[in-house]
């Protein structure tokens, strides 16, 4: 092995022709995508959790919430370093050589520090931002009641302060020969 890959920057992308350096593209992707996967670690064991989230550009942060107690909160309270990814796959791209067989995709990986949001007013702000993202057609005060303080105390809200990110993308021509989508629905 010519390089020590573990010693490279954590955002290093090996396949440089697929790296996305465009911060505006990364931000737009984080704004629009519906779910992400949060990786935490405890005692050398990684954990991956799928979750809804909201990216708040002015805070340079990602917010999410979970139950009041549980593995995610315990891990983060013990070790704040996290990694978060958002991705989607597009069409599959067949080739004669299977080694060239490929797939369209878009993905962003974020590295940062997670902390619990304890302040109730701040927790409330995050909850409304989440609802604003996921239910843009539903309005506070019309479709939603005010959030009782007791409810805010029953949830854990996390701020992932973004330290750095990387992004990757592979997109083929619309008329790529034989391109197809993979989708199997639950029976």
């Amino acid at each position: 092995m010519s390089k020590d890959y573990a010693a490279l920057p954590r955002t290093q992308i090996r396949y440089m022709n697929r790296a996305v350096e465009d911060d505006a593209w990364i931000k737009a992707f984080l704004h629009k995508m519906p779910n992400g996967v949060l990786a935490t670690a405890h005692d050398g064991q990684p954990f991956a959790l799928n979750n809804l989230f909201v990216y708040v550009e002015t805070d340079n942060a990602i917010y999410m919430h979970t139950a009041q107690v549980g593995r995610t909160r315990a891990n983060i309270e013990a070790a704040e370093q996290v990694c978060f990814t958002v991705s989607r796959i597009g069409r599959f791209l067949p080739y004669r050589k299977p080694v060239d067989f490929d797939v369209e995709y878009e993905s962003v990986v974020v590295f940062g520090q997670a902390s619990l949001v304890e302040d109730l007013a701040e927790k409330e702000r995050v909850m409304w931002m989440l609802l604003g993202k996921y239910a843009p057609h539903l309005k506070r005060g019309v479709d939603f009641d005010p959030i009782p303080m007791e409810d805010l105390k029953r949830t854990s809200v996390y701020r992932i302060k973004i330290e750095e990110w990387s992004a990757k993308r592979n997109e083929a021509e619309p008329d790529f020969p034989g391109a197809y989508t993979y989708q199997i629905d639950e029976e």
Partner: protein
Amino acid sequence: MTKDPLVMPINEVRRADRATTEDEEWIKALLNRAGFGALATVFDGQPFINSNLFVYDEADHAIYLHTAKFGRTRANIETYDRVCFSVSEMGRMLPAGEALEFSLEYSGVTVFGHGEVIDDMEASKVFLQKLLNKYAPHLKPNEDYRPPVEEEIRRTTVYKISIEAWSGKRKKVADDFPGAYLYEQMANGR
């Protein structure tokens, strides 16, 4: 707090009413149909997560995937073999008048295990063929593509994740749930 989550089993699902861990057939079906998964590794306390195509092999009770020959994933796994792998599907958003009752339909499986690099050429070939069978079931070896050759296989790293524990979680409601909608429908034009 009555229980310390740090000492609970790693695959403990807090929402027992949504756990599907006991339904192994359901878990296997989701692992078989999911288009991609997220692999979490760790290095020096820093978690890493990336998305990958994969194959679930029931007979081996393992997940196989591959990456570039060298890179972060391989370096991490060669140093720390503990991994976590997750697949999920997202269904409809489920509105509620109380903001914190707002919910969604989903299915998810989380696998815990240890990762290892597969050096064996035959095992790597078997994996690549299974990967092609999963993702390109309509394409046939020797007709639509030629089978992988050794020189090509050496340019990639194949991993086996031996499954030690898993958990499943699911929420699904009646089709006529009032106001249920897909995120993509409402977020269009963003």
